[in-house]
């Protein structure tokens, strides 16, 4: 089975994130990049699919040169090879232009199943899987907490507010996963050493046979018009229990209309 897992390098959530003053997109140079957390689950699931059904896992990422570190991590976890989409023309992509570039790349790479995290911790649009499936003209199975492949069919348990739906589709397909799905492995030391020798193909915009107007900031349909730093959180209310703590807490909750 030809499994492609899409991963994204995102700013470390533990560090302060900044937007650029000129085009108001995320300043990716100013922060430490880490693999998007949900994508680790996607890599793990891709590896498990390979372990169960054979085939190959290809990592696909779009991002600046330093996103190579994120590729390294996925390869160290056990993926076989990688494709890195990197080009200044791709900077400033929104979800729509990202899905376009990735779909073009996927057309070139080929796939039976595409696995990705259901959202990234930076933009958090959560729409990429749907857009990608639409552009590729294949079924999308989203928010999966379990994935099973049987011949040419893929079945998932899709997390819902009330439990889960069992959803089935034929391959090829796009599957997005949630963190309940598995426990990602750590890259083993042997995996880290082996990753040094795995092939990473670098593609630029020209390799995508794409309509340049649909790529990067030029192809983005959304624009950040303005931004401001969030006001610091006001100090919380401390309720001291002097025998009437319960009543005071209830009063507070009532004042906020929680009860």
């Amino acid at each position: 089975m030809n499994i492609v897992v899409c991963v994204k390098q995102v700013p470390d959530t533990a560090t302060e994130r900044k937007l650029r003053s000129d085009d108001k997109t995320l300043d990716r140079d100013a922060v430490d990049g880490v693999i998007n957390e949900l994508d680790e689950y996607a890599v793990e699931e891709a590896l498990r699919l390979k372990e169960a059904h054979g085939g190959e896992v290809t990592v696909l990422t779009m991002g600046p040169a330093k996103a190579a570190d994120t590729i390294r991590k996925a390869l160290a976890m056990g993926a076989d090879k990688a494709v890195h989409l990197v080009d200044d023309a791709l900077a400033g992509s929104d979800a729509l232009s990202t899905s376009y570039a990735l779909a073009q790349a996927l057309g070139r790479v080929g796939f039976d199943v595409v696995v990705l995290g259901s959202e990234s911790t930076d933009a958090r649009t959560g729409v990429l899987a749907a857009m990608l499936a639409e552009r590729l003209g294949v079924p999308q199975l989203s928010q999966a907490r379990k994935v099973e492949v049987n011949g040419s069919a893929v079945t998932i348990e899709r997390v819902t507010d009330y439990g889960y739906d069992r959803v089935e589709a034929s391959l090829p397909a796009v599957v997005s996963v949630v963190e309940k799905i598995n426990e990602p492995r750590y890259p083993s030391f042997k995996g880290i050493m082996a990753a040094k020798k795995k092939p990473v193909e670098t593609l630029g915009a020209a390799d995508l046979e794409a309509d340049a107007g649909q790529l990067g900031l030029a192809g983005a349909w959304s624009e950040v018009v303005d931004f401001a730093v969030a006001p610091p959180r006001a100090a919380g209310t401390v309720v001291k229990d002097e025998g009437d703590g319960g009543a005071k807490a209830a009063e507070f909750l009532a004042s906020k209309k929680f009860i």
Partner: protein
Amino acid sequence: MRPGYAVAMIDLLDLDAQLTPDQRLVRDTAQEFVASRVLPEVGSWFEDGTFPARELAPELGSLGMLGMHLTGYGCAGLDAISYGLACRELEAGDSGLRSFVSVQGSLAMYPIWKYGTAEQKDEWLPRMSAGEVIGCFGLTEPDHGSDPGSMRTHAKQDPSGDWILNGAKMWITNGSIADVAVVWAQTDTGVRGFVVPTASNGFSAVEIHKKLSLRASVTSSLYFDDVRLPAAAALDVRGLKGPLSCLSEARFGILWGVTGAGRACLEAAVDYAKSRIQFGKPIGSFQLTQEKLAWMAVALGQAGLTALHLGKLKEAGELKPYQVSYGKLANVRAALDIARQARSVLGANGVTLEYPVIRHMNNLESVLTYEGTQEIHTLVLGETLTGLAAYR
């Protein structure tokens, strides 16, 4: 969020910015393993005086941590700085955990890998790197510690060529849980190392209890009563340089490892100083507390610089034994001083196992003593400076 993901780490000099992406992956794997698998339980292991070696060994093995700096036989083949980083993160968990890994990789696997026959390597190394077989290293004896050259344990070849081993070793990490022991003994041609399966007739091991340091680590006495070994059991190295070459590998891991223990203590102290209120203010707002924290951070930075520098020398194949002594002496002392300062910041909480500090502090007393006491490493530097040996 997964446990252990993105652990905050104090590194005022940004030393880790000098790491390669691969070295960072090594660090992160060790850090996440410790955060999710070790930190939740190590306080109880220490309190109960146990170390779940049989459970942990296969996990450490599958991550590639056993014999990580060796090549072949299922070993990962890491560079020197990666090896150091892994030790640092393991010891940020507990010195007992790092000791287990050091003994397995540098003291038991390394001599077999370096001085063993092809058969010995094939027999032991793959299972040792996988964590299926546990090893130990027997050099110290009840009456011979800093002066191992006077050891009494001896091996004699009988007419058939078999070796007959007699004597006793003491303070042997992993001794009573080991499947194989690398034992150093006097022979007619000087000190030699022997690969001794612990199931051999005449071999026995007894765990040493009542330790108040390195409690999450098994320490034992070994006894050899006419243990018969095949001629090929003797390793291909003569004299004390055999065991000393192993210790040099392990000491390199220690001089990195203790920076992890020191960092863990500093981090605990900073957290505590920010949240503990006395006289209406966090104790971290008092200048005396800040002086302690700043002092600890500087000591940690110096130790980290030393470790990184020696790592670069080792990587270049230029690390000299006296430089390893420098690192072991300087960094263990720094870590112990940091732990003691941190303990005072935590007040009464500093003496309980609810916090990691006293555990590290007590552990570091063993680390100060084993693999060459601080006095012996001081004498090594003294000899290097003056050309005059002052050991006897």
